[in-house]
């Protein structure tokens, strides 16, 4: 009896996500984006969400579709503006969505801190820039740092390559990106994978996200998006 649930559908995987939740969404551009979970979240209907993700959606699919559906109140991300971020751009310019820009490494490290029980940390990134505004500055050994606080999620929606039936995960290439960190930082971590295998089929030396961080897993059809466009 594993604590991790293997569920039958993406819809089952996203049950219970409440209005107003903070949802960490994996992916760097399209790579690692949990498309099926996001589509299910759109069907599920939760609104007034705060989304934490590296980008603010590409094309008209995935996160962009969630934004277009009007479910997102605020985005924390490092890089909203891209060639294909027209959905976000439009909402932002119309004042229909809040944006908090966080340097990419701080986004990752602040989620790591949340998962690792660190209360706050002094980080050299963004010292002396507009993104330092309102942050506590401190000099340590002659270098300046800003105090950064953890970013916690109520839910994480991430994509991985394989899971075993206990919930151990491995990823594929640069689709790994934010998945492992987000899995540690959310109260409930929901994962879509290409395949669920038996315990013992993953190399224990190569497991990237141990099962302790994984709450629900759903196997989906292989992703069929293209790199630069819609899937």
């Amino acid at each position, binding site marked *: *009896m*594993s*604590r991790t649930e293997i569920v039958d559908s993406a819809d089952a995987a996203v049950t219970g996500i409440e209005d107003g939740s903070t949802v960490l969404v994996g992916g760097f551009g399209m790579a690692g984006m949990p498309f099926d979970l996001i589509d299910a979240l759109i069907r599920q209907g939760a609104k007034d969400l705060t989304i934490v993700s590296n980008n603010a959606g590409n094309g008209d699919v995935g996160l962009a579709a969630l934004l277009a559906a009007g479910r997102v109140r605020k985005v924390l991300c490092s890089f909203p503006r891209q060639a294909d971020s027209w959905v976000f751009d439009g909402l932002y310019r119309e004042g229909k969505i809040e944006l908090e820009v966080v340097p990419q490494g701080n986004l990752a490290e602040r989620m*790591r801190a*949340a*998962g*690792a*029980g*660190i209360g706050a940390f002094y980080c050299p990134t963004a010292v002396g820039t507009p993104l330092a505004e309102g942050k506590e500055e401190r000099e340590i050994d002659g270098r300046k740092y800003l105090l950064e606080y953890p970013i916690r999620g109520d839910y994480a929606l991430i994509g991985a390559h394989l899971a*075993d*039936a*206990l919930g*151990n995960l491995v990823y594929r290439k640069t689709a790994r990106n934010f998945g492992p960190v987000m899995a*540690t930082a959310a109260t409930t971590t929901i994962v879509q994978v290409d395949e669920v295998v*038996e*315990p*013992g089929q*993953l190399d*224990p*030396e190569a*497991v990237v996200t*141990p*099962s*302790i*961080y994984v709450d629900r897993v759903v196997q989906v059809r292989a992703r069929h998006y293209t790199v630069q466009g819609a899937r």
Partner: protein
Amino acid sequence: MTTTPSTQPQPYVDHRLAMDELAAVVARDIPAGSFVNLGIGRPTKIADHLPADSGVVLHTENGMLNMGPRAEGDAVDPDLTNAGKVPVTELPGAAYFHHADSFAMMRGGHLDVCVLGAYQVAFDGDLANWHTGGPDAIPAVGGAMDLAIGAKDVYVMMTLFTRSGEPKLVPRCTYPLTGVGCVSRVYTDCGVFDVGPDGVRIRETYGVSARELAERLGL
């Protein structure tokens, strides 16, 4: 208050549980599917009493989940030990990780239960288990402080009294602390106690009445 029926009061020293029996009691109380760290020494024995289908996953601080039983004979591998440096085995679905990741897992509150030994536990959950405070003692904390503040539930497994008869569940620890208010339950040879901000609650007793225990401990 739950107590074991005790119609004929007996000197409790004759009926207290052996440590192996106590390990079975702790094992009984660990919810199926939990992620659990068992401290060095007595708590290690709890693993022997977990049902095979419990789905309990054991964490060892030196970088592994789904640790299996002690290794014997040819299965001994010097690269695979538990926190007590005892050779162990790996179960299907195991995962290895480095020390920073292992302690991030602990400190981040991801373990459901850890079970530690103790010199003393205070009524409010303070824990003393790393240092006798003696002038000749060499201090050695290991992962005790990290575990104490990390797991969702910290259980202590110990004898209730020292060899000289002093209670180890005390109003206030006199030994140096490992963690503040961190213990939620204490399993002893004489009984099981919930501890915390609301004080002590006796859950069950072995060969002694709850009233006698309460008197003896000054509850």
